[in-house]
């Protein structure tokens, strides 16, 4: 069973990629399993300067999901280039570098530098982080702003640029089309939905930040719908994510039109989830009558209705 996937800039041995912010820079999981097994890693969002992120509590549990408001804590692009990426280069692993910022200039600067690093094979433009006051999601909710940013980053990036879409929009297809037109090489979707939880004992919001991003199985039907709709309207590839917990969920994403998938929250539930899915995927594809993973991608769009 072939489970290799070819995407702009990315030759993936398999389509399983830990999602940005849920896998750090791989160091912690490398203590648990051989991370070279992964298709790729979407590393933690990188900004120009180091960022401290939001006050704690930063996470809260919800029914079928969780809220997070980490707030883009990261050591800044220089440190990541001097320390984290070289460490990752010991593995035969194409890296997808998640880029964040609070101005077009910051995105451009960070993407430019990251894209020159050897093992960085693609940039993931995070225009959808709901957890920072300025920037982040603001870039992902307006077609023109998103397109402008994409263009600017495309101009400087030495590697393909994937734009990570926010689900907190009226019409995600329009945003997808806008960034495609602006030159995006691919899409990753979706980022988290904005949510809130209140502590009944105190009446206060559980997260210090007030709101946070909702991830986990609760959001899967929303993500599947969005990917399905975007797949029909754009021709650049999609890396799908949102609530994947097992190999069947991966199959659902492939059917909807994702060429590869990101695994986020599930890493916290079962730290071995990625290698487990990688192992199971060929069998599950076979069970469903596929000979090549390619035949499963977009299957729902081709299957005959009776």
């Amino acid at each position, binding site marked *: 069973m072939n489970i290799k996937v070819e995407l702009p800039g990315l030759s993936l041995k398999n389509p399983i990629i830990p999602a940005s912010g849920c896998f750090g820079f791989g160091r912690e999981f490398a203590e648990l399993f051989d991370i070279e097994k992964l298709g790729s890693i979407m590393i933690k969002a990188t900004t120009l300067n180091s960022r401290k992120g939001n006050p704690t509590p930063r996470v809260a549990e919800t029914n079928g999901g969780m809220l997070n408001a980490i707030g883009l804590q990261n050591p800044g692009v220089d440190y990541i280039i001097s320390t984290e990426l070289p460490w990752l280069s010991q593995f035969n692993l194409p890296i997808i570098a998640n880029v964040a910022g609070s101005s077009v200039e910051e995105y451009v600067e960070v993407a430019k530098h990251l894209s020159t690093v050897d093992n960085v094979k693609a940039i993931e433009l995070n225009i959808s982080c709901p957890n920072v006051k300025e920037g982040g999601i603001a870039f992902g909710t307006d077609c023109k702003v998103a397109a402008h940013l994409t263009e600017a980053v495309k101009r400087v990036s030495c590697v393909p640029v994937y734009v990570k879409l926010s689900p907190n929009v009226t019409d995600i297809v329009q945003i997808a089309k806008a960034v495609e037109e602006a030159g995006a090489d691919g899409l990753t979707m979706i980022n988290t939905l904005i949510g809130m939880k209140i502590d009944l004992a105190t009446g206060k919001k559980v997260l210090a930040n007030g709101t946070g991003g909702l991830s986990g199985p609760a959001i899967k039907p929303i993500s599947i719908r969005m990917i399905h709709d975007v797949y029909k309207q754009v021709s650049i590839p999609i890396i799908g994510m949102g609530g994947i917990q097992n190999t069947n969920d991966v199959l659902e994403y492939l059917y909807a039109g994702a060429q590869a998938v990101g695994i986020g929250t599930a890493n*916290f539930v079962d730290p071995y989830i990625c290698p487990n899915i990688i192992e199971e995927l060929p069998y599950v594809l076979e069970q469903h009558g596929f000979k090549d993973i390619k035949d499963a991608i977009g299957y729902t769009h081709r299957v005959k209705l009776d």
Partner: protein
Amino acid sequence: MKLIEDMKIVKNCEIAKNIYEMTLTGDNVKLMNQPGQFVNIKITEMSQLILRRPISICEIDQEKKQIKLIYRIKGQGTEILAKKLPGEVINIFGPLGNGYPEYSIKNHETALLVGGGIGVAPLYELAKRLSRRKIKVKSVLGFATMTDVFYEKEFSFYGEVHVATIDGSYNFNGNVLDLIKSKNLQFDVIYGCGPQAMLKAINDEYINLKKGYLSLEERMACGIGACYACVCDKANKSTETVRICKEGPVFKLGEVEI
């Protein structure tokens, strides 16, 4: 070897009001060899409780391949935990984090173990190990009220024990710090675990006077340092943080902002 295992419940019973002691057995016990580390528990397959629950390791018995956890019923997760029966298995991820460094104290020195409420738990294995090295162990256990008190006798096997209750319903009336001062307890190294206010008080009081180690808590997701949910500031460095799950949960006195 995977750091995750379905461990079998040997015992699970209430030892004080809403406080349970759970004994678990499994092969991964052999990886557990440090007082103050914790495990991250997948309590149920119900998706309304998707995150694991961090619980400190209270006691380690390599011979029996057993560990003990002590937990207080707080919300839905610990409530479900309390209903589990011997023979059932639960999925345990751990040991995680850095516990109390055992050799942080010299053989002739005196250790003061200060536990507040459920924070008493991770100090127990420490007491055992220190006393095995013939170190003099004094324990101060603080609780809200009499019905909360647990492990007084257990700690007494390893040295003198002082119990304080906030409402004075049992033994000393006041908090642990009041007790330490009022009884003028002497010691060289202090080890604390408990509510943040207690840890802060200990930190402020002894930061320049004593060596010591405090175990912190924060809401967690991954438990291994990957998600940055559980950070706290390094002391005097408002731009640097540590992850409680990874660099901690035990930190040196004065190391972090409490």
